[in-house]
């Protein structure tokens, strides 16, 4: 008589399930949930499998120690799971993530989401998955090679579609959090926590699947998922920007109250502060801000309200990001808008150093920018005027004091600043006046200006050397 039957094995598996599913489920759900009947049914074969895994030695001794988790789980994962176990984990963590999302426990949801994709990554594009697909939907041996390849591709497509559902679920969540699903709904209320989770979930998925080569992913499944997660984020960001543009177009600057004018900018500032700046977002936000600032100036709204500085303040992070991109060469073509924005920012400043710095940045990013160059030219004339003012207080006899070069240094300062003013904006109508004053002071203090001219000329010539 056969002593160990398949019923014995099934009974043993069931007894192990009874012993291990409750603590495992409790630990992996971060002490939030208990396994219900459905979970028991799904996971019934899992504990017997886990007991044979290398990671079991790590988690088994701490099964009843909640504090040891999730560190113990990560340690066990490092020891390695078989692909069959990872298939269990991919599904289990996927369900836990859904449950956490429904309960708005986003921190745990993100952990479960990441664990689920980590496990999928270990399962997809493996012999296990190929074998499973081939068991589930065996290819007909009578079919020719081409037909078999076509069927195999369609099976891969089914798998990809299933996984894409999870990505699209996050897109849907993001659209709800941002009120993008309903054009009639005001965007004022943002579900910040949901937005942060949804965005980070897609971002982390892209990160997890980065740098996967063809050898690791011959079917390209993992790389396609990565592309889908990245394009899902782009899709949401694009929708946000499109909504932002429509909101701006709907604003009547002549009559609209400040709250209405500022709303699109407040919204986009908050959204991208959470999800991070994209090139399209920064270029659009800066362009729109500059356009609306010009329109407000022309309509005189700038004088009636303080909307303009508020818009500049809201969009400053976008322009800083755009500046970095242009400077690093990762973006191009929006240099003048970036400089326009800096000019708007610099104009109301009263501190000379701050103005000089901001206009220099504008000219740096958009050489030859007319307004920035003009304003920078005037700031240099301020330096010239200050230096000439100090020079005028100096006695002409000072030049006879041996070793005294202060008068010469002061005039050199005025001379250089004037040269900069001329360099940045030659048509500056105040330049001839300061040139005249400089020459007069040079004559009074006995300083020959021509020596600096020669040097400047030769320095310029050197600059032109290849």
């Amino acid at each position, binding site marked *: *008589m056969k*002593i160990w*039957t*398949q*019923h*014995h*094995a*099934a*009974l043993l*598996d*069931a*007894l192990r399930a*009874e012993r291990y599913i409750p603590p495992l489920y409790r630990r992996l759900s971060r002490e939030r949930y208990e396994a219900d009947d*459905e979970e*028991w*049914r*799904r*996971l*019934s*074969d*899992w504990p*017997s*499998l886990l007991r044979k895994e290398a990671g079991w030695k790590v988690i088994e001794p701490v099964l009843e120690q909640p504090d040891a988790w999730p560190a113990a789980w990560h340690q066990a994962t490092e020891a390695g799971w078989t692909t*069959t176990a990872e*298939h*269990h984990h991919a*599904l*289990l963590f*996927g*369900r836990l993530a*859904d449950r956490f*999302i*429904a309960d*708005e426990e986003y921190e745990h949801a993100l952990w479960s989401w990441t664990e689920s994709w980590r496990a999928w990554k270990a399962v997809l594009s493996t012999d296990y998955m190929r074998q*499973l*697909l081939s*068991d*589930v*939907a*065996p290819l007909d041996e009578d079919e020719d090679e081409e037909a078999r390849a076509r069927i195999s591709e*369609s*099976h891969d497509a*089914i*798998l990809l*579609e*299933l996984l894409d*559902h*999870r990505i*699209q*679920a996050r897109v*849907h*969540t993001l659209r*709800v*959090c941002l009120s993008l699903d309903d054009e009639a709904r005001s965007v004022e209320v943002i*579900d910040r926590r*949901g937005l942060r989770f949804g965005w980070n979930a897609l971002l982390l998925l892209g990160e997890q699947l980065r740098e996967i080569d063809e050898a690791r992913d011959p079917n390209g499944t993992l790389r396609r998922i990565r592309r889908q997660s990245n394009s899902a984020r782009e899709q949401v960001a694009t929708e946000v920007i499109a909504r932002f543009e429509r909101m701006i177009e709907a604003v009547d600057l002549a009559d609209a109250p400040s709250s209405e004018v500022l709303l699109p900018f407040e919204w986009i500032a908050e959204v991208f502060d959470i999800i991070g700046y994209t090139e399209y977002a920064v270029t659009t936000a800066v362009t729109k801000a500059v356009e609306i600032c010009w329109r407000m100036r022309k309509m005189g709204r700038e004088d009636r309200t303080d909307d303009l500085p508020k818009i500049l303040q809201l969009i400053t992070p976008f322009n800083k990001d755009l500046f970095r991109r242009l400077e690093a060469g990762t973006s191009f073509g929006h240099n003048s808008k970036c400089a326009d924005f800096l000019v708007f920012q610099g104009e109301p400043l009263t501190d000379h150093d701050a103005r000089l710095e901001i206009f220099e940045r504008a000219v740096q990013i958009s050489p030859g920018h007319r307004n920035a160059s003009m304003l920078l030219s005037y700031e240099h004339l301020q330096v010239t005027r200050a230096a000439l003012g100090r020079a005028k207080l100096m006695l002409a006899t000072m030049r006879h004091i041996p070793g005294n070069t202060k008068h010469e240094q002061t005039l050199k300062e005025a001379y250089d600043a004037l040269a900069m003013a001329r360099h940045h904006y030659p048509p500056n109508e105040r330049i001839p006046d300061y040139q005249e004053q400089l020459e007069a002071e040079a004559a009074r203090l006995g300083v020959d200006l021509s020596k600096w001219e020669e040097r400047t000329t030769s320095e310029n010539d050197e600059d032109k050397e290849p």
Partner: protein
Amino acid sequence: MSDKPSDNDLEKGNPFDLLGLDPRMSPRELTEVLRQRAERALPEERAQLQGLWRKLTLKESERIKFALLAHPRGSRQGAQKLDALREKVPPFLSRKKLEPLTPTALDALVSPSDAAQRELPIAPPANFPTSQDHD
């Protein structure tokens, strides 16, 4: 907050998981297993089994989806309740050999009521019959 339901439904109402079946089963095997279960089921359970069978066998692409989203099974038996499994297990039979019984004088102190028993020798005979005697 609402969430897109499609894959959730596929997982939650997954017939393979609900029935504890091995996702690698072919449509023919699934039909056979579910037919056997339906024969033993109550009328309302039978209707549910028919619904799940339809979900699994009508469209191949759906069956593949359910199979990929079902938990792997170690055997094709399917998950069953503990009590049901206990009933299926045959009684335990030990192969361990018992100690041989050797009656002693002490045993005679407890007189068996049965007359036949009383006739039994209290010690083994000095000479056991040989195999030739039996023949």
